[in-house]
């Protein structure tokens, strides 16, 4: 079934804020652009690692982290455009299935950072169907804000590698800019895990 986000009701920033409030122990990786702004707006913390580039890489950064930290929930929060650039990553993740990894794609069907051009998810691609086809164990599609609590339970339970496609409104919100010094972000993230610089 082809669908668009024209009927989506979820406010991205409110959804991310509620999700992270309900997953306070999670390690968070964000894809570049609006997803980074959403996570930063929800409250900066050293366990957030914001990407400002490396488009297509967020989910696989999350994979390496999840394999290294099996006792922690790892949440990747990214957008449809960022994930579309790394579709193969879903296949790579499907082959590994770390149960503590959740990929949350905020899907507004558009490239928000560059002028709201329609993305492939407005033009026929279903990311949840792709993720299912890649063998990722738990696939959820979210249309209602109230589903955020059940998604948080999935994240916190660490029982199944999860891909969540969240249909959000294509709003253009004020930017909330996280730190963009990569060395700082890396070192404070590791310090929060008790890891020294090299």
């Amino acid at each position, binding site marked *: 079934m082809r669908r668009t986000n024209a009927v989506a009701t979820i406010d991205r920033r409110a959804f991310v804020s509620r999700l992270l409030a309900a997953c306070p122990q999670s390690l968070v990786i964000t894809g570049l652009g609006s997803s980074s702004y959403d996570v930063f707006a929800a409250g900066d913390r050293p366990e957030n690692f914001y990407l400002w580039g490396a488009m297509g*890489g*967020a989910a*696989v950064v999350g994979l*390496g982290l999840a394999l*290294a*930290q099996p006792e922690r929930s790892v949440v990747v929060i990214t957008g449809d455009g960022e994930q579309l650039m790394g579709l193969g*990553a879903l296949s790579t993740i499907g082959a590994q299935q770390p149960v503590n990894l959740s990929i949350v794609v905020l899907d507004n069907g558009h490239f928000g950072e560059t002028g709201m051009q329609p993305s492939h998810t407005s033009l026929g691609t279903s990311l949840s169907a792709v993720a299912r086809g890649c063998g990722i164990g738990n696939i959820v599609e979210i249309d209602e804000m109230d589903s955020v609590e059940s998604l948080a339970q999935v994240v916190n339970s660490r029982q199944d590698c999860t891909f969540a496609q969240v249909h959000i409104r294509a709003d253009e919100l004020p930017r909330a800019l996280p730190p963009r010094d990569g*060395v700082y972000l*890396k070192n404070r993230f590791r310090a929060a895990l008790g890891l020294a610089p090299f």
Partner: protein
Amino acid sequence: MNSAIASPPMWQEEIFSILKEGGVRQVAYVPDAGHAHVIRRVHSDPDMRGVVLTTEEEGVATVCGAWLGGQRSVLLMQSSGVGNCINMLSLIQNCRFPFFSLITMRGEWAEFNPWQAPMGKATQGALELMGVTVLRASKPDEVAETVRAGFDAAFEGGESVVVLLSQSLIGRKKWEHTK
């Protein structure tokens, strides 16, 4: 088990030993015949995780994630994959992640397939343009020392380093063709 599996070149086992003794826990790879022994050893080691990739740039990202989480991870690929990594290497440079990759060369020695040549010729230059230090081993007895030097520069010195493994080390790929 065929004889190639029973007795790989010693330098390939030396590479595995350096990774193992160096505490590497995750090995991301796009396969190549020259890496086959190491990949096999990784998958049979309960303390190591082999991560097969669909494209090499995923490996650049996933080794960074491993480091964020406190594990050492390395990337194996062949030279044709270097071009796929270029923009993702900005993650390494911006955050100064330790980065270590072993790259088997194609397109430079007794190459039968001309489609391997352009990227093979550009491999070293492309990496250096992105700020990566490039070492090379061309003879079996220089592999271990070169790999160990690059490995330590990455994980002790925080550098981004690759070791190119010359095509002459791996030998001719056998193609069937008529004359």
